């Protein structure tokens, strides 16, 4: 780091200072060491309710306090928490307020509550509560936040708890045997965009250290941040055991799965994460990445071979970084449902063989780069549901054998390039509902065996070339051209070509939509096909 940069950010807690520098909201989870305290407060707790701090490896992590703005402790919410007057509290059996304390004399016949008259809590918000126990002689006392208890206390001393309220009530509860006094109750909100997980089986586990990190089992482990109203538009940086990745993000208000859906994550360990409501400068991104790498997130993206599902469902990402994925062979579902990406970088995916569902559901992609997918064999569903693509590049898909659903629903494609799909065998549903295509090129589909529903719903497709299937052994053209707008010549081209292949016992439907009936030329081809046990249906009913 240059001396100038260090001066600008003041060194030290660099990541937190970025939020100050940009005057931006967001979240920051970068202190995974369970011994770390900020303003004396532990940052990680076993459950979403708070209460018990995480302090050892294998502990589940159910709540992590956001420190993007520091640990921000709000105003005092307990009214008469010092018990200076006999007011503001509803007293159950055995409780009395006097001499600056609230005391329980043990005459209660079960749990007995001291209840704040004005319920100060808001369900779902996070608080710090402190209470002093004195003159203790028997039993247990607890603080109740909404309906959940802090745990039992049975000695003189101070209690300090962080908790997430599940109701509005604030109660001090004596059990049947408690005899003692309480005093100096304080309750203050800890504001911030904290991460939590309410489901016990879905909590990451603390691991390490050092370095310390959270492990996700990819069986639902997930921390959720509630993005505040207005959302966050800016930069998201995630440090995992694959390295540090910096994304542009537009996160809407509401739940944001900080661990990306619980099952999908680029890696299995999380070292840190931050989101800031500002687009960081290139220099500041570099500083943040360096800080994250210092936490143990060493960049090994370049050696990862299996990127399957890595960014699946990352619907808030608006830009994807130029990561080194050059060793990747499996990109199945890698960017599935990254529905806010409008562009895709020129990643080196040249080693990739499996691109099944890779960009499926990237519904905002308007263009696709000329990636080297020349080693790819499986393109099943690869660009399915990319309705914003207006053009498709001349990718080298010559090794591809599997193209079912590949361009399904690419409804804005007005033309299709002359791809080398000569090794392709399965083209079922491949161009289904490509409703803006008006003409189709003379692709080499001679190895294709399955064209079921291939051009179904291509409602603008008027022109289809001749000789497309002359050497094809395919017999499954079920509903292949249903719902198209084929001219009579195009219909003839299809019929004559399939008839020329000399195959038997197939199915071909050129029906629905606004397609024309075949001419006499086409009808002759139909006769030839039917003589070889084909089932052929066409517009006009011939």
């Amino acid at each position: 780091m240059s001396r100038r940069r260090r001066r600008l950010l003041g060194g030290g807690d660099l990541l937190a200072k970025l939020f100050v520098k940009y005057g931006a909201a967001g979240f920051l989870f970068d202190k995974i060491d369970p011994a770390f305290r900020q303003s004396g407060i532990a940052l990680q707790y076993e459950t979403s309710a708070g209460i018990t701090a995480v302090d050892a490896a294998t502990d589940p992590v159910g709540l992590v306090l956001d420190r993007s703005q520091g640990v921000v402790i709000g105003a005092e919410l307990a009214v008469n928490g010092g018990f200076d007057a006999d007011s503001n509290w509803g007293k159950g059996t055995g409780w009395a307020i006097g001499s600056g304390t609230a005391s329980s004399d043990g005459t209660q016949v079960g749990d007995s509550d001291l209840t704040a008259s004005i319920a100060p809590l808001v369900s779902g918000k996070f608080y710090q509560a402190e209470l002093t126990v004195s003159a203790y002689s028997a039993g247990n006392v607890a603080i109740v936040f909404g309906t959940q208890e802090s745990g039992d206390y049975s000695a003189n001393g101070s209690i300090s708890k962080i908790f997430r309220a599940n109701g509005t009530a604030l109660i001090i509860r004596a059990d049947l045997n408690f005899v003692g006094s309480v005093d100096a109750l304080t309750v203050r909100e800890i504001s911030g965009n904290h991460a939590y997980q309410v489901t016990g089986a879905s909590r990451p586990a603390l691991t390490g250290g050092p370095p310390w990190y959270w492990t996700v089992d990819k069986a639902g482990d997930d921390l959720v941040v509630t993005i505040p109203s207005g959302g966050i538009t800016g930069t998201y940086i995630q440090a995992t055991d694959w390295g540090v990745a910096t994304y542009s993000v537009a996160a809407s208000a509401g739940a944001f799965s900080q661990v990306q859906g619980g099952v999908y994550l680029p890696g299995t360990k999380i070292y840190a994460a931050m989101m800031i409501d500002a687009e960081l400068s290139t220099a500041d991104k570099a500083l943040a990445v360096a800080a994250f790498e210092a936490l143990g997130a060493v960049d090994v993206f370049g050696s990862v071979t299996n990127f399957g599902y890595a960014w699946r469902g990352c619907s808030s990402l608006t830009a994807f970084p130029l990561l080194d994925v050059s060793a990747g062979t499996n990109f199945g579902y890698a960017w599935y449902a990254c529905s806010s990406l409008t562009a895709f970088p020129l990643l080196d995916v040249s080693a990739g063989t499996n691109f099944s569902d890779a960009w499926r559901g990237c519904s905002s992609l308007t263009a696709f780069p000329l990636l080297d997918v020349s080693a790819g064999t499986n393109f099943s569903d690869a660009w399915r549901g990319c309705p914003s693509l207006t053009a498709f590049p001349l990718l080298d898909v010559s090794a591809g054998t599997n193209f079912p659903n590949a361009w399904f629903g690419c409804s804005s494609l007005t033309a299709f390039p002359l791809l080398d799909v000569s090794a392709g065998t399965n083209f079922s549903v491949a161009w289904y509902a490509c409703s803006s295509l008006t003409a189709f090129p003379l692709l080499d589909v001679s190895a294709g065996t399955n064209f079921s529903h291939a051009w179904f719903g291509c409602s603008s497709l008027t022109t289809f070339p001749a000789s497309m299937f002359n050497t094809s052994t395919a017999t499954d053209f079920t509903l292949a051209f249903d719902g198209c707008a084929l001219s009579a010549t195009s219909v003839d081209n299809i019929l004559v070509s399939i008839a020329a292949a000399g195959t038997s016992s197939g199915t071909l439907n050129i029906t629905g939509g606004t397609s024309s009936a075949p001419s006499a030329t086409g009808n002759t081809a139909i006769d030839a096909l039917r003589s070889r046990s084909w089932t052929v249906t066409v517009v006009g009913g011939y």
Partner: protein
Amino acid sequence: MSGYDYSITLIIPDALRDDANRFFCALGDDLAPLPGRTFSIPLAATKDGEPTHWLCRFNARPSWLKSWKEWQADGIKEPPAGGEWDDYELTKAKVAAVMAGVEIDTRTFKESMAIDERITRLDPGSEALHWKAVAQAKSLTVGA
């Protein structure tokens, strides 16, 4: 607090999933709105298949395992999270069916490490190997 020495994988048939999720709410282990979402991983015979089972995995203390064994042996009278079974839209019969239907696989982390020799220290990275091994043993994979 330390002591989460066990990796627990639970599998429940699809027909019992809803009740099983409610049961974990009643245990206090899931604070999500009913019916809860403890069993969140669909398992099927094939990748695209309809789920026949659902899975969850978590770390647990010995005390959790002890309670589970007691519940299996003796039944469970009241919801540990408080209230009545009705509050969770459960009955004693449904709870008994869940307890009978859950398949539990328990491993210490030391045992999990033995699944893969690349794991050289106590590392819950072995957790994923644990549940995947359990699913694989039943010839199930993560479904649609």
